[in-house]
């Protein structure tokens, strides 16, 4: 009996506790990321942004949460009701489920599995179902058109994201996210004799891939300039036009969770995760998860700035960029990286 408790019940409770703690921190972070998005956008346009609820508008997201939850969810009469309500659940669950393998600091991860990055890729390839189910179940042509656009866009850019991830994996030789971060302790900087610094991280040797990943991440999460699914001038609000109140909030939450995940992935794959930018005293005092947070915030700042000053792409240009530019480029990069790793023995063999 004690054996069962020690082997099953205690670890299960521990994992549940960790997950809950992670989830609460993550949701609060997402609330502030949403606020930051609006504040940065406002600052670029020389507005003030939300500034009424709480000091500097800091509680705006929580006020919005209450507003959404307290409203009546309207389900269209001719919609497919089960699928209609299932879609936002799918979107938000999948978006949050990916965080199970994200290492925030050395050893600070809920599930340290061998194939972490593949798990992230697999789950985020399912996120399109929330969109497509929501669009179809609404039984409205605007929602359906928005869903089709969004799904086609997400599927297209997933391919180049996959190849970019493969180039990183070739350099690291492991699919474990912790290993990917630790492998960035040595790199270009240490090769030429410098102490460990931000020059070792993957963004420098794989810079073109970093750029492709960033742009593909914008498209994958339906962020401007690729926000055609919700192009409000043509499609009202895209696939979520029939949604209101809590289901709508869940779609928004799923979207921002996906954006946060993409920022985390950029941090882990290219910006050295929790590693400090300089590997000596004042910087190593700062705990790892703070560096991780700072890097994620930096990535999100890039996301927000792009939203603020880049005009929207046309749909055929979007597809052209994905299939005719990024796909060949990233495919070529995979082959070149494989050759370099194999011939010069850099990356997997060096670390």
């Amino acid at each position, binding site marked *: 009996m004690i054996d069962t408790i020690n082997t099953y019940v205690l670890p299960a409770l521990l994992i549940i506790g960790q997950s809950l703690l992670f989830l609460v921190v993550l949701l609060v972070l997402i609330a502030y990321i949403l606020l930051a998005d609006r504040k940065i956008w406002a600052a670029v346009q020389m507005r003030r942004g939300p500034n009424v609820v709480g000091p500097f508008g800091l509680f705006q997201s929580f006020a919005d949460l209450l507003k959404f939850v307290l409203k009546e969810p309207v389900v269209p009469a001719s919609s*497919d009701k089960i699928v209609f309500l299932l879609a936002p659940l799918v979107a938000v669950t999948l978006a949050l489920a990916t965080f199970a393998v994200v290492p925030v600091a050395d050893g600070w991860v809920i599930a340290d599995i061998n*194939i972490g990055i*593949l798990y992230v890729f*697999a789950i985020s390839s*399912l996120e399109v179902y929330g969109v*497509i*189910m929501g669009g179809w179940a609404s039984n409205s042509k605007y929602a359906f058109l928005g869903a*089709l656009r969004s*799904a086609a866009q997400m*599927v297209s850019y997933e391919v180049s994201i996959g190849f970019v991830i493969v180039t990183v994996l070739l350099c690291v030789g492991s699919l474990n996210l912790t290993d990917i971060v630790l492998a960035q302790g040595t790199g270009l900087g240490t090769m030429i004799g410098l102490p460990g610094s931000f020059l070792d991280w993957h963004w420098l040797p794989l810079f073109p891939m970093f750029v492709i990943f960033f742009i593909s991440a914008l498209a994958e999460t339906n962020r401007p300039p690729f926000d055609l699914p919700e192009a409000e001038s043509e499609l009202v609000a895209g696939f979520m036009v029939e949604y209101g109140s809590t289901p709508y909030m869940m779609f928004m939450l799923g979207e921002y969770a996906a954006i946060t995940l993409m920022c985390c992935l950029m941090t882990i794959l290219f910006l050295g995760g929790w590693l400090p930018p300089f590997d000596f005293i004042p910087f190593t005092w700062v705990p790892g998860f703070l560096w991780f947070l700072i890097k994620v915030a930096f990535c999100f700042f890039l996301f927000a700035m792009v939203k603020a000053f880049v005009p929207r792409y046309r749909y055929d240009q979007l597809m052209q960029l994905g299939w005719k530019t990024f796909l060949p480029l990233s495919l070529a990069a995979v082959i070149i990286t494989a050759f370099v790793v194999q011939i010069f023995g850099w990356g997997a063999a060096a670390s």
Partner: protein
Amino acid sequence: MLGLQATFFYFFALIAVGGGLMVVFSRNPVHSVLFLILTFVAAAGLFLLTGAEFLALILVVVYVGAVAILFLFVVMMLDLDMGRMKKGALKYAPFGAIIGLALLAQLVIALSGSYLAPSTATTLATPMPIPPLDQVTNIEALGQVLYTRYILFFQIAGLILFVAMIGAIVLTLRHKEGVRRQSIPVQVARNPKTAIEIVKVESGRGL
């Protein structure tokens, strides 16, 4: 350990079988595809239980993340009338039964090989020293076999898929005359000299 594994096995197996049945019995074709996706996910769960984590996630990425989405696209876009489609369904029942039986027979033959002739099955299965899974990861073990011993089959499979893809493109490609396409280099290369024509118009004459 066994109890937990068995519980999860029955959980996923029940979902897979139930989902499979609902694929056939649900009235709405879109619901059928959604149940098919559920079945795929449950199958991925079964793979995970056997320790084939790589296969499980590849199943999710390829089948659920790509193939099933195309299914869903097609089924949503088609104007399907299930009542009309079910009318002629009985005509095709024998063919369906034959295909089902052939697949079942293949499965039985493949599985019974290890019971009827255990010696041949073991020599076929382990001609190559695969390192135990507690030393290398799933992917490493799979890659070491796939890219050495089975490289020919791997390449042939890739070639077949490639030919199928090109075939699909050739079948659907149509050259339309008179379509105005955007050429970005031409647009970028325009300058005031090539883009603007300055005409002096005498007053009272027009062009």
